[in-house]
């Protein structure tokens, strides 16, 4: 019988530390599949974030380095300028990319750095214990918005892709999700497009993946996927936000 489903070569044979139902494992697998399919495992340099995915290099079987919290796109800029023929991508959470690293992501995009950014948006700080993120929905309760996020004092969910779409240096922005098999496949297509954009020297791209954090959403894995489908996508609509590739 033909084997239809195996571990990608770019993924180490190792159990992850992620919570059951977490979206990181899915996102890891998808980008590893794309790297395998593009034959890029030996020419990839990834920049892991500070956050739940800080140990991504334990699971990825290609060169991976760390970056201080939020500085990920600056670090990637340095790598890519020195090694322009490598596939360089950052993997960032919403705390890393949308809070402490806001300046770095916007300016890397504005310079049109030939990079790919995989942005995993689950609306909370997972690693530090479920605190409010800039992307947290209004009305959502977190460790640091115990009375729920209120716009009067905590502002509004920050939509980085919509903010960045008018930057001329930015080539491709798409928001996807992993809440259903269809969306998972669509996410894989978007990652492949982002990487291809870079390999074709067509510039800066971000794929934002709406992802579940069952642990700090206080939901089980199935309910978490439901929440994305019914609530999260209302605030963060899925789709191509910019494509000038």
């Amino acid at each position, binding site marked *: 019988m033909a084997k239809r489903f195996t571990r990608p070569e770019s993924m180490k044979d190792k159990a992850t530390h992620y919570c059951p139902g977490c979206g990181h494992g899915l996102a890891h697998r998808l980008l590893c599949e794309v790297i395998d399919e593009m034959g890029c495992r030996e020419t990839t340099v990834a920049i892991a974030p500070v956050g739940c995915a800080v*140990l991504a290099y334990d699971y990825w079987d290609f060169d991976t380095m760390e970056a201080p919290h939020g*500085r990920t796109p*600056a670090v990637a800029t340095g*790598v890519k*300028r020195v090694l322009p023929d490598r596939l360089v991508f950052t993997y960032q959470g919403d705390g890393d990319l949308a809070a402490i690293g806001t300046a770095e992501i916007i300016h890397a995009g504005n310079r049109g750095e030939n990079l790919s950014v995989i942005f995993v948006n689950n609306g909370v700080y997972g690693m530090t214990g479920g605190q409010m993120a800039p992307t947290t929905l209004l009305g959502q309760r977190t460790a640091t918005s115990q009375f729920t996020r209120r716009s009067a004092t905590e502002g509004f969910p920050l939509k980085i892709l919509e903010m960045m779409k008018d930057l001329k240096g930015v080539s491709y922005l798409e928001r996807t999700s992993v809440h259903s098999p269809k969306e998972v496949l669509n996410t894989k297509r978007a990652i492949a497009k982002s990487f291809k954009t870079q390999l074709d020297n067509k510039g800066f791209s971000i794929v934002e993946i709406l992802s579940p954090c069952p642990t700090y959403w206080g939901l089980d894995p199935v309910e978490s996927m439901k929440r994305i489908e019914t609530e999260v996508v209302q605030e963060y609509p899925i789709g191509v936000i910019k494509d000038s590739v």
Partner: protein
Amino acid sequence: MKKKYLSTGNEACGEGAVRAGCRFYAGYPITPQNELIAYMSVRMEEKKGTFIQAESELAAINMLLGASAAGARVMTSSSSPGISLKMEGISYMAGCELPAVIVNVMRGGPGLGNISTAQGDYFQATKGGGHGDYRMVVLAPANVQEMFAFTYDAFALADRYRTPVMILSDGMLGQMMEPLEIDEDMKPAGIVKKPWAMTGAKGRDAQRVVSLFLGDGALEAHNEKLQKKYREIEVKETRCETYNTDGADVIIVAYGLVSRMARAAADRLTAEGINTGLVRPITVWPFPYEEIKRASKDALQVLTVEMSAGQMLEDVRLAVQDDSKISFYGRMGGGVPTEEEIIEKVNSEQ
């Protein structure tokens, strides 16, 4: 063939980097180092290297982190407030064992301070500045020629020990013009292979550049490895200049720009009958404790002169181990100790 130029300290520093093979520079404007960033914007273009005017000092130092991890010789420069912002990245580079050269053209502080010259960042440069148990080699030039030569040297040191190296300069040294002699045939020195670099896992296992060590005892072991390296640097790389210290009754200790006034004061004092010598630390980390101890053994007075409230003074105290000999003269916030002031201070302690 040697060629003579007239150069500012800042531009000499930039040229030293270029001659050392630096092909990646990222920085952010701040006075009094602007001549350097402007110079690098031209020279990196000419040498087909990378110049990036970053969105902040934080971004600049982290661009270095990436470019260094990719195997390039890299430099950034700034002045005091901007160097404070770079401390995060410097700590990470020390932890990740990444070579880089960081130039601090010091200005007055604390806070925004002013844009004149100062040496108030000695503690920051030599005692940490960023978080964690790390050290970085800190070279303190005293003239334009040394701005060139020490920057050139810094790249080989950074690569040899896989560590950030700082050039600790100041606003006056950065902006003054002096003759500069460059050997036109000069080639980059101390080029090493970087098998640890992030280049893609071709023909080898995938690898990582990290400062995170979570395993039981792993971070302690990593720190012990770093400390071992720092001890080796202390033994092999401590540099200092001694001047007329044999049999001197008075030893002046000064680094960088101030050492020039101190030398002139020592000459005049000696001519006036007070035999005075100078110890000038060239590396302020590693600090020349032994040399200062030796030079001051028979001296009656050891005067530290700085453009600060007395920061290097603490290291001189440790070296001399006899507080009855110790005296200090410092100016702050843009004040520069003059030859006369130093002479007066020595005389008042006699």
